[in-house]
């Protein structure tokens, strides 16, 4: 799997990394710029960038740092989204209930499926995560009271202790921003922590890790649960962003898109996942406006980036920076 080599060594300590700072600065200021254009459209677009960035960070945690290529992560996004929709249909819209529920169900699903998936390796792991993803997809499609295959609309956005903090698009945007920032910082801390070091070591050489005394499987399962919860969080936010939920959220194409975002942005960097999500979604909207077959343009771009800039966009930036400082 040389294609899935991470660009970067683990997060460097001590010095400020400007790229993540810049990314979050741009995201923090984006609503101001949006006010000069079609505000609702652009604000919505950037909101979904950040929502998918959370899911992509989860995928990067597993793929980029743990070597666990998950092809079913959209299932968690779907679970989070359905938690909002199903509670909503039953008249419960407060996130004090729906968000913990979304996270709990994601965690349980991750724990159970992880227990099975993590017994396998490499391509088998990919296949079995895909299989569980498809299972979730079909279960969602069979939820007749909640729209079945057609999906179900979310009538009201989530409230917090009765306050409609998501109703204003800008306020919602900054809530999603805060969730993204928190997810990013959490994963960053995690990767450098004792736990993260064991998790990363397990990717390098699971046999060595076992023979120095680590039960690799348990650490991987904890990471899988954390990544599952992040996926659930993204789904919770996605349902609020789109005010609609359908089984399509869980399709394998969606899982594939998350991997593509991470590869495009740069595997094993976390902020690369944010860049990847932004590139994918913005290109989809820009190129999608030009031609329906925008993937015909995006596909070759992805191949070129993966082939020639091993570390995705982040790797490309690094290469350009090195070139400039050499000259």
């Amino acid at each position: 799997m040389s294609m899935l080599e991470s660009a970067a060594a683990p997060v460097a300590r001590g010095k400020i990394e400007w790229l993540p700072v810049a990314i979050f600065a741009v995201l923090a200021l984006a609503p101001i710029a949006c006010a000069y254009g079609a505000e609702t459209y652009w604000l919505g677009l950037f909101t979904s960038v950040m929502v998918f960035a959370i899911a992509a960070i989860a995928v990067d945690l597993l793929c980029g740092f743990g070597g666990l290529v998950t092809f079913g992560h959209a299932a968690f996004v779907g679970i989070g989204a359905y938690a909002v929709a199903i509670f909503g249909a039953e008249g419960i819209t407060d996130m004090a209930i729906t968000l913990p529920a979304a996270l709990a169900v994601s965690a349980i699903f991750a724990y159970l499926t992880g227990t099975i998936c993590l017994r396998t390796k490499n391509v088998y792991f990919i296949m079995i995560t895909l299989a569980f993803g498809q299972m979730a997809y079909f279960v969602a499609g069979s939820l007749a009271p909640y729209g079945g295959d057609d999906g179900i609309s979310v009538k009201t956005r989530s409230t917090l202790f009765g306050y409609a903090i998501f109703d204003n698009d800008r306020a919602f945007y900054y809530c999603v921003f805060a969730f993204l920032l928190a997810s990013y910082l959490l994963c960053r801390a995690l990767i450098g922590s004792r736990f993260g070091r064991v998790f990363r070591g397990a990717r390098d050489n699971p046999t060595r890790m076992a023979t120095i005394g680590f039960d690799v499987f348990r650490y991987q399962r904890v990471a899988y649960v954390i990544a599952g919860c992040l996926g659930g969080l993204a789904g919770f936010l996605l349902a609020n962003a789109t005010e609609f939920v359908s089984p399509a959220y869980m399709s394998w194409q969606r899982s594939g898109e998350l991997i593509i975002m991470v590869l495009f942005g740069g595997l094993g960097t976390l902020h690369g996942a944010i860049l990847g999500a932004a590139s994918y979604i913005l290109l989809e909207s820009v190129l999608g406006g030009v031609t329906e077959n925008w993937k015909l343009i995006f596909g070759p771009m992805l191949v070129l980036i993966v082939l020639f800039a091993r570390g995705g966009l982040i790797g490309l930036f690094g290469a350009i920076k090195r070139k400039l400082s050499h000259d």
Partner: protein
Amino acid sequence: MTEPVLRIEDLRKNFGGLQVTDGVSLEIGAGELHAVIGPNGAGKTTLINQISGTLEPSSGKILLNGADITALPPNKRAALGLARSFQITSILPRFSALENVALAVQARSGSSYKFIGSAASESALNDQAMAALTEVSLDGRAGVLAAHLSHGEKRALELAIALAMQPKLLLLDEPMAGTGPEESERIVGVLQRLKGRFAMLLVEHDMNAVFALADRISVLVYGRVLASGAPDAVRADPAVTTAYLGEELE
């Protein structure tokens, strides 16, 4: 009688029809260095794999300090004080030499379910890791990515990882394999210094090293212990000479 550090009772392992470990019984006492020699394919690595837990025996028993560990997974055996090196270098290529060793220290000092705080800056872990690197004269290369170390340095790193585990029993699978004469000598020197601190099982083809280091030698041929005893007795054993040593010593 005191319990030996390692006791193996009638261990058997077959891959299909191939009997690779055929009724091996042996004991290693505290501080003893026990060498296992034998021709290629004799089943030496397979024996070490079964002791360290990466391979399940077909039958027989393995006891570490009197406790039956036959059914334990490798990580639990490590926690009981069993460390090993691999014939084919087994390190973490994307980590620095220091972090390779620090992880071994981390495994036996406190919980690793800590999700915040930088592990790489825990000086308690780093200090002990550095001490182990110093023992194998690798302290000057602590910050180097393990993948970038020379072959000999990687072998030394494996040894440092094992030392950092503060083992009760150390299994060494051809620690000098593929190293030049100078590096071999260095490793022999390290092992000589370590001798007596803990029990060791050494598998090695370099007979000079084996006879310089071993307190006892067992000769393994076709998965069977052909002879076992003090180095001089083994060297003089005619059966051993014909089966194995003859070609190696001439």
